[in-house]
């Protein structure tokens, strides 16, 4: 989240897309309800914030929303694009903000174009947008700004130049008329215009809107762009950086934000530093290719400018005294993946028998999929599989799962019992970036070990083997620091200190990342967490909260700066310089983020130099992290286009209404095709029904299948079917049905309801159904119904394809058919 949970109470309008906070985040949802019940909030004269839920199904969130609209899954770019078009056509954007706080005025290269669904520089052979002469990591050439003699982007603050970002944006979304939105999303034009009217009002400085999303936007082949389209709308309305505004991702696990920050994803190092690439021979090569360039004389370009300091401090954390200026701080000891190494790629490699083993720690490949049957096939090609989990999972048990013949599985499976999070201390970083320490509730049960002890032991033994037997390239392993009291059993307190980093000259904990150095005198395991564990102690343990709101929330805005710790630097709202106007006055004095008091910035921890006067001619632009210094409406950091465009899901019942010849994303990587495996995508002739998957409030993914009281609340897999479709199929609630896709099938109960329904897409009518994901062939419910539970894996249906940028699987939009079972 750019903002945080409690901040949602500050919003006038709440757009919820691809999320179901009442069910997935019931505790955080209290802040939505407070906004709704607060008479000072809301469009017009107030009377309570309005909550608009656009979702494939009417969920428990819709049940308390002011307005629910049924949207076709995966079409949110059309929804947000249509809203942007409405805002732009009616001049409802926040003009000052757009001119000065976004790159609307930047002039784009003459080589940039967008025609019939394709951006410039497309190469159909490789299905990528290509850079003619690519240094590693560089962006597509034609997606660049026009530069002046000093290397800065040319700007037109009147926003009239036909090649300025504003005009390109206006042109791009002029195609997204309310009629087009209706054809693509299925939302009737009149209803869409009601929403647009409310949204349009949020461009006023005294109004503010938040957009809340979750994996309902992420898990699509266009996932990154779905999210970007919403962010663009927020930039146009001037809602980024403001309390009550922002782009707020709800994370699906208690600590998934912490995981992401600490590089759970293959393409980043801790703190969102890029993974080095082959061809980058030195640290300088890497910095040159990775760090953003300053594109405006008043841009601070903080991340780009300090990239090397953060990277060197990270390398010093990992390699200690072995990382020296002479060996480029051990830069060449860390991996430079030659190809994509995402989750889907790991299974793809296993399918090609190019993987020996996999360690699954705290995740269940089989249940998560996509295409669980293909995943099980991939796992059965491994020599070994280690499952680190407190409980058996569908992955530890895959070898005797449905459709598997144990004799044909060559994989040796090791179940390593690990502690559950209630058995360890450590921190959770919530969706709002708050790092909150917790204590262990129970001691480890039985012979279980902490995950980090298992990994430490593994390293200890691998080092011993290297010492005894030697081996290829020992340096990266042998020099890895394990600077803990017991290197085989590090404590989480020690790890938290290490993540924060220290000054090697004084031995003291660092207080801010602004003091990190690129000469090897500082460490930081994750620079964005520097400041979380200072000489004063572990900041995430702080608990000065609602027991004394006057003292602990001095601004009254709900920042509670002495409660736990929020990255970066305990800042509660990111980009908060943008919450104030050019001279430092809050856009809305009733809801200030920060303000200039004549000598310093006060309020939240400023996302800006604390004493930099906004009227200083050399004052930095508001978005200090990127090269532009302003919010990027046009961005060359994506692989599938600088402006979000609607593409159909890979499995869709309709052609793209905007450009039928380029229907789905033209740059999505097609694994089966590339590997010359059989096609596993279905068509609407065989599979005419749109399906999406989701969570329910009663379960947390798959692990709660082990908790009897939660299994009582939700004991059996089901599919939600629209009343009309159920009538066609002769199905009523409780009947068993077979839901099948090109890839697999489920046998589940039917729940017949108007909460899901039919979509009218142009002249075509299509049914949309919903499938909760929580069940499988392992757990309390499965033991009660072993035969039935063989067909409970929702991801047996989902397609093996992912987002063009992140390769997050498209588990939210695919095609199925449904038959009644006898």
């Amino acid at each position: 989240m750019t903002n945080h949970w409690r901040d949602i109470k500050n919003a006038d309008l709440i757009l919820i897309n691809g999320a179901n906070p009442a069910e997935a985040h019931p505790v955080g949802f209290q802040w939505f309800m407070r906004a709704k019940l607060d008479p000072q909030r809301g469009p017009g004269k107030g009377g309570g914030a309005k909550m608009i839920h656009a979702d494939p199904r009417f969920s428990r969130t819709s049940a308390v929303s002011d307005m629910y609209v049924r949207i076709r899954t995966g079409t949110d770019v059309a929804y947000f694009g249509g809203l942007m078009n409405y805002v732009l056509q009616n001049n409802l954007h926040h003009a000052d903000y757009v001119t000065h706080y976004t790159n609307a005025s930047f002039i784009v290269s003459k080589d940039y174009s967008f025609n019939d669904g394709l951006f410039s520089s497309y190469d159909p052979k490789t299905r990528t947008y290509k850079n003619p002469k690519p240094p590693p990591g560089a962006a597509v050439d034609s997606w660049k700004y026009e530069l002046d003699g000093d290397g800065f982007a040319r700007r037109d603050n009147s926003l009239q130049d036909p090649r300025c970002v504003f005009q390109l944006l206006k042109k791009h979304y002029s195609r997204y008329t309310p009629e087009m939105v209706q054809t693509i999303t299925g939302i009737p034009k009149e209803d869409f215009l009601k929403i647009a009217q409310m949204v349009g009002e949020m461009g006023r400085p005294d109004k503010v809107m938040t957009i809340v999303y979750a994996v309902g936007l992420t898990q699509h082949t266009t996932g990154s762009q779905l999210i970007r389209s919403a962010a663009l709308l927020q930039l146009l309305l001037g809602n980024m950086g403001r309390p009550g505004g922002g782009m707020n991702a709800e994370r699906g696990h208690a600590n998934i934000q912490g995981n992401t920050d600490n590089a759970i994803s293959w393409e980043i190092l801790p703190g969102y530093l890029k993974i080095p690439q082959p061809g980058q021979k030195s640290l300088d090569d890497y910095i040159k290719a990775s760090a953003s360039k300053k594109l405006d004389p008043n841009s601070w370009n903080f991340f780009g400018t300090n990239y090397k300091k953060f990277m060197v401090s990270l390398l010093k954390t990992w390699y200690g005294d072995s990382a020296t200026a002479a060996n480029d701080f051990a830069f060449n000891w860390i991996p430079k993946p030659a190809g994509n190494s995402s989750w889907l790629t790991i299974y793809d490699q296993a399918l090609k028998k190019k993987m020996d083993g996999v360690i699954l720690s705290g995740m269940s490949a089989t249940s998560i999929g996509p295409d669980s049957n293909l995943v099980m096939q991939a796992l059965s090609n491994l020599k070994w599989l280690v499952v680190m989990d407190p409980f058996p999972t569908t992955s530890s048990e895959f070898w005797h799962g449905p459709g598997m013949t144990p004799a044909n599985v060559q994989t040796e499976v090791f179940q390593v019992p690990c502690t559950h999070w209630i058995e360890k201390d450590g921190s959770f970083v919530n969706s709002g970036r708050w790092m909150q320490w917790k204590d262990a509730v129970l001691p480890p049960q039985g012979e279980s070990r902490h995950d980090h002890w298992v990994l430490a032991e593994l390293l200890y033994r691998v080092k011993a083997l290297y010492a005894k037997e030697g081996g290829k390239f020992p340096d990266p392993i042998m020099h890895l620091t394990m600077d803990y009291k017991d290197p085989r059993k590090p404590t989480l307190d020690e790890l938290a200190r290490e993540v924060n980093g220290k000054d090697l000259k004084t031995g003291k904990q660092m207080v801010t990342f602004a003091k990190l150095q690129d000469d090897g005198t500082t460490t930081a395991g994750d620079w964005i967490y520097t400041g979380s564990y200072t000489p004063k102690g572990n900041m995430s343990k702080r608990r000065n909260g609602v027991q004394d709101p006057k003292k602990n929330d001095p601004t009254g805005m709900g920042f509670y700066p002495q409660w736990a710790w929020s990255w970066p630097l305990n800042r509660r709202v990111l980009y908060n310089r943008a919450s104030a106007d050019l001279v430092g006055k809050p856009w809305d004095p009733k809801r200030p983020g920060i303000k200039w008091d004549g000598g310093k910035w006060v309020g939240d921890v400023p996302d800006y130099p604390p004493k930099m006067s906004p009227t200083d001619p050399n004052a930095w632009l508001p978005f200090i992290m990127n090269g532009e210094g302003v919010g990027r409406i046009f961005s060359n950091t994506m692989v599938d286009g600088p402006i979000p465009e609607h593409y159909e899901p890979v499995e869709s019942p309709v052609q793209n209404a905007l450009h039928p010849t380029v229907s789905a994303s033209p740059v999505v990587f097609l694994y089966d095709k590339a590997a010359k495996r059989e096609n596993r995508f279905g068509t609407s002739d065989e599979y005419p029904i749109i399906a999406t998957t989701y969570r329910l409030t009663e379960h947390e993914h798959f692990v709660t299948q082990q908790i009897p009281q939660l299994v009582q609340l939700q004991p059996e897999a089901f599919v939600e079917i629209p009343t009309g479709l159920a009538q066609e199929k002769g199905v009523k609630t409780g009947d068993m049905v077979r839901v099948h896709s090109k890839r697999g099938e489920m046998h589940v109960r039917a729940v017949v309801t108007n909460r899901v329904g039919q979509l009218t897409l142009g002249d075509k009518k299509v049914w949309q159904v919903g499938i909760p994901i929580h069940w499988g062939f392992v757990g309390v419910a499965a033991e009660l119904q072993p035969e039935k539970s063989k067909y409970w894996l929702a991801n047996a249906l989902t397609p093996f394809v992912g987002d063009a940028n992140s390769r997050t699987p498209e588990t939210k939009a695919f095609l199925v058919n449904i038959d009644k079972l006898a």
Partner: protein
Amino acid sequence: MPEPVGFFTDSSVCIGCKACEVACKEWNQLEGNTPSWGDGFDNTKQLDAENWRHVKFIDNVPQGEMLTGNGAAWLMMSDVCKHCKNAACMEVCPTDAIVRTEYDTVYIQPSVCNGCRDCISACPFGVIGFSAKTGAAQKCTLCYDRLQANMQPACAKVCPTQSIQFGTLSDLHAKADARLATLHAQGNDKAQLYGRDDSIYGGLNSFFLLMDKPEVYGLPNKENAVLPSRNNFKSYLAAFVAAAIGVFAGVKALSGPSPSSGESTGGTA
């Protein structure tokens, strides 16, 4: 004596998360029943010995691409023992196991209950269940043990949207009245309080804000919420009159010339 306490359950903000059900089971150490399918969202199905909170789901969502939620289309309501002023269970209990506590709540003393189950058939809301494990009738205690420790009941404590509010009845009545006024002002004409006044069994210590008629939630409306009990003057009077007529008829029959003339009026004594 402490002030009378109770629950105000505001169904307009209930999100059906069932945290109340789970917290109740955790605190009161209820194992729950063997998992079994209900209808997808309501798999608890009823209040019983193992379920002292039960979230009802009533799907009245109409067909359409654009719908209004606001708590009025897919109704959710966390049901619980009503702690009636005129508690039928208490009246029929032959061993005085069911008592009114110092907090004005209705409590089954497990050590006194003999398991006769009269209370189960007497309860007009189907709240009470018999536990084979304890051999006693069981239901919500309004967390009697927590109240004694000055803690609020577990369900109210965990409710994330303040749908379940605990407090003194006078406070809760004021909050409920204000909430109802807001909803009416917003045009939610069907919103109504249930058990706030004495029309339902003399008043309910755990009362509700409903978004539709009580019947929609499977609750007796005020015409039906009539307890054939000594507290109900009208029915008591009716019974008395009937009895008097019966006695009179019987006496008359015995004293009359024809032994068969009194057959049709049979006594009630």
